[in-house]
């Protein structure tokens, strides 16, 4: 399933729709180059969960930001600076997954062996100055259902 957006606002809108459908323990993995809209989409997801838009900024530097003001806790990861899976384990990444919150992971390509068995993969691509394509690839039953709901 593929969606095309023509502005960051539209991308945020899709994020919002996703955020409203999420349940505790859900994992969303975002793949895409710099500037492809991963953080914009993550922001939308956060807003959909009831988090204040302004509070959601890129966690590239701090690796993970925890947002507890929404309907469910949101763990917003950015693995850009982590090159090996030992580093990812060392930040305690796995202690957050499968817990009471929703995990949104930017630069999920870094996970390799650590990718969970079930998750919603979203691939973002630059298709023009402000045009982006978002490809949804659900892994596992829960995420096939979720992707269907989003259509």
């Amino acid at each position, binding site marked *: 399933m593929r969606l095309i957006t023509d502005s960051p606002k539209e991308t945020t809108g899709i994020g919002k729709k996703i955020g409203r459908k999420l349940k505790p323990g859900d994992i969303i993995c975002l793949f895409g180059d710099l500037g492809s809209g991963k953080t914009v989409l993550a922001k939308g997801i956060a807003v959909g969960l009831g988090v204040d838009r302004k509070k959601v900024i890129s966690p590239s530097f701090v690796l993970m930001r925890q947002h507890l003001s929404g309907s469910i806790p949101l763990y917003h990861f950015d693995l850009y600076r982590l090159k090996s*899976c030992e580093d990812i*384990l060392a*930040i305690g990444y796995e202690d957050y997954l499968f817990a009471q919150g929703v995990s949104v992971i930017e630069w999920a390509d870094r996970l390799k062996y650590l990718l969970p068995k079930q998750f919603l993969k979203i691939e973002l691509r630059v298709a023009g100055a402000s045009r982006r394509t978002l490809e949804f690839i659900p892994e596992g039953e829960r995420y096939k259902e979720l992707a269907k709901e989003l259509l």
Partner: protein
Amino acid sequence: MKILALDTATKRLTLAVSDGTKSGEFNLEVGRKLSGLLELIIKRVVEAAGLDLKSIDYFAVGLGPGSFTGMRIGLACVKGLAWALNKPVVGVSTLDILAQNVKDEGKQIIPAVDAKRDLIYCSVYKISNGKCRRIRPYMLVNLKEFLKIAGRQSVILGDAIGIYKESFLKNIEGVKLLEKELWWPRAHNLITLCLDRIKEKKISNTFNIKPIYLYPKECQIKNI
């Protein structure tokens, strides 16, 4: 000798103080609130025992393997206290502490801790002449590897049982799975092990103590 002992590498925090004659222990499943609660709990338990943190002679801490965040919270806390009070630290593997829950002489004792992602932290111990000895390294293995390690009549304990019970019963002849109450390390056993380490002069300090990090083998190849 006054000892404060704690282990935070499993889901259940365990903490104890001893002044050489009497001791008190505190156990609680704390989950994500651990980092905020640990200092408070230490203060309460030490006060309840009628002691003063400044009078503690040794800080004992469980080194894992286990939850990376969990064991670092406990270790960082102990490092801070030991540094501020200028006291020695004694580190003991969480699996060693766990093995102390078993008294069966001569049998293979296997503490098995759930490491998530279908993996198990484990090691193998044997008691002879009343002394519990580790006879294998600390390992991070999958179920198949675990079943190869576990010999007949092994005694297994730890929260991995909660996940693999059926498979253990089916594949390990004469296996004994301990009940849930015995799945967690107990700080009073850490105090006992700490006293052994002090006798053997295996003592560390704030700067040279390290947790036991075990990585899955798929992870050990560095990506550039």
